[in-house]
């Protein structure tokens, strides 16, 4: 176009364009080009945490004495003693490692850089991404009925699973607990056998990561790869091939990075396999398979609440969904809280009562006069469909703190394990309250009310965001005391965000924060007694 303009300008010059006009047009064009350049500046769009392998703040030499969550003892899983570093078997492996690390191609280098020396981070990111990918609610069939995801036929449609907050917090809990127990076991054997890292045995072996004194048998990376692959495959069956490929790359990268010899990896894989069996056995019997009830059961729970309190919640979608989201998630087995009754919040104010009217009016007032700041807070914490959910959001914060404080994989796994146990317990406690009290949402109690966030398919009291966030903040404040104020402020903001969004009353949020704190404390107390001496 610029060329066309210049040509036509040349043709016209001696007709009706004076030199001044020509100069003006060229100036204008130049300004246009400059403006184009300025407004075209694009921001980076990262797809994962941008960090490199780092030197661990500590090695936790006593990690093998910490109390596992599911294992009866770190020695519950038995592995053979490794071959001595002078043995011909070991020396053959060492030679093999040497040649493998000698000529790495670009793809292999990238894999090592991606997985880093703390692969707990990457597997957590993969878990969050799968949660987002599967966090879609089924739409209605042509006849107005709804078909729900079915684990017996995962392809559906709709695909199994629907990775909603209860499903996602449970997935993360089993993943993190299995990783943690597996690594406690690995740390026990590392220091029991004390076989040094390959680069310590032979200093000509290059290490992609900062060298340290951590014994390398069994491989912690291998434990994590197998546990993560298998737990995530159980949770996301359609991702079996994808997860197998990721784990394969991770396992190979352990050799490419110079961190492990083959027998280190084999021993780690074995521990991973045994731990995942124990974790999935608990999962099979924890009550989740009954959480999404029949309509008959759901209706009976609604009738019980109505008889008890005189109110009940209805789904307000078109067509109406016959059953809410996992009415019996409140009966799933918690990790660290003995009973839901001991953490169940008190009764909310009856719709129509003065206390109710005050908080309902507040929701209406915010909707009418929402500031830009309040709108942003509502959207910031929304974590709804097509995202990693509130549990995922708090895992993201944990990830960022782990990197900031340069935790080793064992301590990273510990962080995620207590975080996700607390968050899952919070979800169970919250869902117990939701379906016990069966409280109607603002769009149900306020006629004609419109909101900037979508109202989810479950009752109002208490707020999931508030409960999850307060429990998570409790654990992260304990593990990262310097971040305690930030975490608690985030939890408060996440709670407020739901009021700004028009989908919760203040009493939902305040009770939820209190509930989350209580539930989280159980996990914190467990952590304080696990031997990590924090």
């Amino acid at each position: 176009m610029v060329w066309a303009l210049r040509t036509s300008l040349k043709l016209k010059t001696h007709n009706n364009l004076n030199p001044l006009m020509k100069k003006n047009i060229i100036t204008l064009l130049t300004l246009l080009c400059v403006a184009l350049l300025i407004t075209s500046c694009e921001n980076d769009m990262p797809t994962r945490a941008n960090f490199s392998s780092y030197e661990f703040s500590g090695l936790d030499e006593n990690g093998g004495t910490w109390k596992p969550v599911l294992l009866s003892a770190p020695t519950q899983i038995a592995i053979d003693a490794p071959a001595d570093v002078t043995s011909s078997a070991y020396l053959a492996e060492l030679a093999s490692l040497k040649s493998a690390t000698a000529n790495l191609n670009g793809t292999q280098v990238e894999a090592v850089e991606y997985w880093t020396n703390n692969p707990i981070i990457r597997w957590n990111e993969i878990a969050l991404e799968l949660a987002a990918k599967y966090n879609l609610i089924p739409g209605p069939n042509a006849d107005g009925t709804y078909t729900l995801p079915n684990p017996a036929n995962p392809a559906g449609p709709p695909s199994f699973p629907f990775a909603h907050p209860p499903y996602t917090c449970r997935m993360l809990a089993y993943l993190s607990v299995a990783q943690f127990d597996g690594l406690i076991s690995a740390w026990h054997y590392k220091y029991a056998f004390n076989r040094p890292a390959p680069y310590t045995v032979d200093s000509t072996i290059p290490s992609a990561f900062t060298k340290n004194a951590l014994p390398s048998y069994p491989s912690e990376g291998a434990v994590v790869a197998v546990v993560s692959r298998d737990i995530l495959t159980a949770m996301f069956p359609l991702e079996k091939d994808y997860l197998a490929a990721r784990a394969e790359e991770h396992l190979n990268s352990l050799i490419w990075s110079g961190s492990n010899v083959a027998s280190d990896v084999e021993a780690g894989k074995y521990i991973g396999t045994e731990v995942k069996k124990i974790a999935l056995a608990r999962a099979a019997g924890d009550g989740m398979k009954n959480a999404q009830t029949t309509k008959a059961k759901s209706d009976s729970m609604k009738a019980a609440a109505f008889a008890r309190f005189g109110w009940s919640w209805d789904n307000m979608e078109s067509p109406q969904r016959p059953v809410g989201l996992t009415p019996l998630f409140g009966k799933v087995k918690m990790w660290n809280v003995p009973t839901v009754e001991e953490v169940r919040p008190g009764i909310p104010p009856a719709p129509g009562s003065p206390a109710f009217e005050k908080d309902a009016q507040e929701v209406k007032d915010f909707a009418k006069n929402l500031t830009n700041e309040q709108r942003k807070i509502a959207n910031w914490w929304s974590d709804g469909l097509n995202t990693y959910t509130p549990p995922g959001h708090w895992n993201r914060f944990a990830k960022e703190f782990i990197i900031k404080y340069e935790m080793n994989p064992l301590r990273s796994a510990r962080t995620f394990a207590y975080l996700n146990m607390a968050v899952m317990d919070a979800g169970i406690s919250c869902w117990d309250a939701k379906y016990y009290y069966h409280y109607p949402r603002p769009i149900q109690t306020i006629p004609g009310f419109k909101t900037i966030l979508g109202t989810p398919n479950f009752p109002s009291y208490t707020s999931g965001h508030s409960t999850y966030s307060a429990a998570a903040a409790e654990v992260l404040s304990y593990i990262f005391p310097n971040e305690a104020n930030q975490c608690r402020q985030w939890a408060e903001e996440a709670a407020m965000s739901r009021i700004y969004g028009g989908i919760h009353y203040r009493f939902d949020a305040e009770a939820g924060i209190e509930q989350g704190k209580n539930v989280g404390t159980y996990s914190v107390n467990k952590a304080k007694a696990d031997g990590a001496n924090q």
Partner: protein
Amino acid sequence: MMAQTPSDEILMKKYELCVALTYDHGEWNQYWEGTYLRGNENIGTFTRAIMMPMVAAGITDKLNLLIAAPYVQTKSTGGQIAGVEGFQDVSIALKYEIIKKEIGKGNLKLLGTAAFATPMSNYLSDYMPYSIGLGTNEWTLRGILHYQLDKGMYARVAGAHLWRGQTEVERDYYYNNGSYYTTYMDVPNAWNYNATLGTWLFRYALRIEASYMVLKSTSGDDIRPYNSPQPTNKMEVEQVGFFAQYYFKEKLKGLGVLAYYSQVIDGRNIGKSTNIGVGATYQFKVKDSQ
């Protein structure tokens, strides 16, 4: 003495000014989720109304400046999501007549338009379908070829490329065939084509047109099943329309009125919208050109 848009062949003469106000009412009750046409009872019928003031100024007989500032309002009959309203994107365009040549019994004109649009208010683009705009800078370069017989009938084709930037949203994680840890979403660029057949009647007092328009994004993802659209989506539109504009010649000279109707006939990741519009234009000389 003609009102104009960035994609037609009309130019103001030097020192002429045209002010216009149009009202557009668009409605759909079906949308394409990817390439799957569907309804959604939680939206019902979706309405987007646009009030647009526009100014066109003749800088020279061949170069015009156009500025538009649309005000958009959205709402739906179903569901509980709140519609929004506000000033959308201000656009500034320069239209230039590159070539004008007599051919056969008519005139051939080639014009070029360069336009820039940017959001005028802090609206949230990531609130689809209710958001009032895409929330990003947009650069357009368009070529227009117009052949008009002396008798008054004409045919016109136009082609444009739209460069769209990133939009900043109010969350720092989103899914677009993978994880994105950022508040920025990439809005896809697009190609835009128009073909128009029309005629002048009553000694250039009335203009009527039938047109066909296509817009295709060059990249982007599809709306996921029963999920909200996202500014990252690959949008495609195929639309037909009719347009009429009447220019008062004696009394109320300088005033014009216009009306149009358009229907989206095919698409991807957009609503199957029916639009009707009305508008008024007023054209006058700011200064006599000597």
